[in-house]
């Protein structure tokens, strides 16, 4: 099955537009693509007419262009016939937005779609979903464009079983300036499942990180998914819901009781080097750091801080996440000291975490971070910055990012996220260094780099 027409369409047909209700989901989808995206879009309704000054086609067969992507937004009972028509008319792919299928017990209606599409080798997303969002190209979400928060184009693909979680995470991605390559709401996944998208995005040049929100895999589909993820050269992140044992049936063996559904899920992800995000904070932190650095690291963390308290908090968070804080040999401590500014030399604390104190200057941070990143047992440098300190300027972000790139070692920064400090934050982020608004988040970013491999 070729998924290119879904993610790189030039022509889109929206089937099921209303002539009387402009808030109808099909109208919202038609309107946003018509006005805001470069795709050529056609409206379809058997009654014909005119929408936003454009002709409404009475059927998909009436459109002369080859349609790459049909967005189907009609009542569930009608979708079977519409899908048949699309396939017969040579449409190349579809997103079935409509609900009313397996999620409400109408497995028969869903089965019909799946059978036909399977026979024809026809890719479709859904049913019961929001469909596809590709920055600056196409958007099948039935959400008015002015209400959506859209992350910048970037290299993270996010695939979600829930449309609501997807849209919410897009807000959080935008907030943390994580760029998105594609977002997909897969709904009931009648034909296109997590595995198909994993395979496709593994080869997609626009995607470097593949993130999933999963409620559950189908029978044995989890096995196929993890075996594929193991082969995938890009980091794979999974956030799972449905972890509580509520509703699970009683079992009569110790193993079945100890190896519950979620315990098994989590153990298998770790076994195959898939990064499991326990919650939204982890998901956002993991995607942000893996978006910057795809190469797995060991667990040694060097910390440079402008405050002893921040250093201590970071050490605790590292310990909790299984990261190590290697001590710094005396000769290297001496070298750091010699290179610090005279006012900082006598008061800095030179073992890991290196505390440059509230008197630290930009140069002191740059010196220390360079020396730490040259150490073999340090795999990643955490920089804890308090932008209100007098010696720190808004240039420090770009200076440290340059060091990180030059020495080929990942840096992760903590800076409080308020508008006032934006230039410092952008100095990091626009130059490829992730920044977290919390110490815990910065440590989670480092954790993601270490977990990204088989254990």
């Amino acid at each position, binding site marked *: 099955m070729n998924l290119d027409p879904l993610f790189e369409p030039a022509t889109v047909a929206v089937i099921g537009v209303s002539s009387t209700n402009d808030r109808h989901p099909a109208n919202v989808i038609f309107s946003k693509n018509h006005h805001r995206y470069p795709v050529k879009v056609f409206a379809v309704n058997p009654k014909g007419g005119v929408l936003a000054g454009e002709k409404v086609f009475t059927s998909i067969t009436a459109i002369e262009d080859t349609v790459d992507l049909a967005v189907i937004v009609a009542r569930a009972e009608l979708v079977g016939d519409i899908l048949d028509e699309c396939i017969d008319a040579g449409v190349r792919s579809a997103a079935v937005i409509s609900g009313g299928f397996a999620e409400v017990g109408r497995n028969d209606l869903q089965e019909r779609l799946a059978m036909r599409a399977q026979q024809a080798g026809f890719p479709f997303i859904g049913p019961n979903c929001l469909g596809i969002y590709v920055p600056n190209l196409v958007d099948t979400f039935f959400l008015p464009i002015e209400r959506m928060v859209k992350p910048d184009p970037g290299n993270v693909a996010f695939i979600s079983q829930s449309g609501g979680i997807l849209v919410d995470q897009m807000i959080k991605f935008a907030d943390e300036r994580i760029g998105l390559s594609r977002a997909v709401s897969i709904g009931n996944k009648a034909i296109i499942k997590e595995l198909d998208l994993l395979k496709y995005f593994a080869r997609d040049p626009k995607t470097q990180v593949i993130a999933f929100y999963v409620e*559950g*895999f*189908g*029978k*044995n*589909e*989890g*096995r196929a998914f*993890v075996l594929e993820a193991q082969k995938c050269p890009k980091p794979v992140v999974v956030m799972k819901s449905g972890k509580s044992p509520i509703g699970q049936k009683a*079992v*009569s*063996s*110790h*193993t*079945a*009781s*100890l*190896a519950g*559904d979620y*315990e*098994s*899920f989590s*153990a*298998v992800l770790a*076994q*195959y080097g898939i990064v499991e995000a326990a919650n939204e904070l982890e998901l956002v932190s993991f995607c942000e750091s893996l978006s910057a650095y795809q190469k797995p690291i060991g667990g040694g963390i060097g910390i440079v801080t402008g405050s002893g308290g921040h250093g201590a908090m970071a050490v605790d968070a590292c310990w909790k996440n299984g990261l190590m804080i290697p001590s710094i040999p005396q000769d290297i401590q001496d070298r750091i000291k010699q290179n610090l500014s005279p006012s900082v030399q006598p008061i800095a604390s030179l073992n890991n975490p290196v505390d440059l104190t509230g008197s630290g200057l930009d140069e002191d941070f740059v010196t220390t971070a360079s020396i730490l990143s040259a150490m073999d047992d340090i795999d990643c440098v955490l920089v804890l910055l308090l932008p209100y300190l007098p010696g720190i300027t808004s240039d420090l972000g770009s200076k440290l990012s340059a060091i990180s790139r030059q020495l080929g070692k990942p840096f992760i920064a903590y800076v409080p996220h308020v508008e006032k400090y934006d230039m410092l934050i952008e100095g990091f982020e626009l130059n490829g260094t992730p920044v977290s608004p919390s110490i815990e988040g910065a440590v989670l970013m480092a954790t993601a780099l270490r977990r990204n491999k088989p*254990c």
Partner: protein
Amino acid sequence: MLTNEMRDIISGSVQWGWVLEPDAKRLFSLAGFDVPRYILARTHDEAALFAAGIGYPVVAKVVSPKVIHKSEVKGVVVGIDSDEKLFGAFDRFSSIEGFSGMLVEEMVSGGVELIVGAKMDEQFGPMVLLGIGGVGVEIYRDTSLKMAPLDEKDAASMITSLTAHKLLEGYRGSDPIAMDVLIQTLREFSELVMELEGLIASIDLNPVMCTAKRCVAADARIILTA
């Protein structure tokens, strides 16, 4: 790898939904696993003859299709050192519901009690569990879980990821257990479990007694697919 005799054991147990311990032991023995020497005794004489052959002490366990958890009905007696105690156990077990005989077996002692288990997971298929075993297994919950089959690295990392792994490596003067045997046992177990997909729901080998020389499955419970 599954022989006809192994398949017969499973198909003959479908009526109960699980495999009685002597049959489960036979199955694991056929598959090449180390199990204690045992006999299913239906009379005092059969029990005494076997005990005389291997020498006391022995372990006696009730065999009944109605009893999955034997210790809950006081259906296990360890350290039996005389015919008198052996017959006493037999007579008491006879009154347990569904009594169909008494398992008499070699008493394996020393070493560390582990659980080696399997479960067919809906999403991931055959899974293998290793943990600190014995009756407290669900209290300590010190376990490691991986998708089968296991390679050597998988098996080794299951062992080191146990909180109590130091107990296995020789703690405070005790001998380390035979790590290579445990790794081999886990790998062979995982391969057997792959073969049993579709037939079984879960397996408990609990305890597996691991000493400096061997890993012996002292108890085996196989739950079949519903």
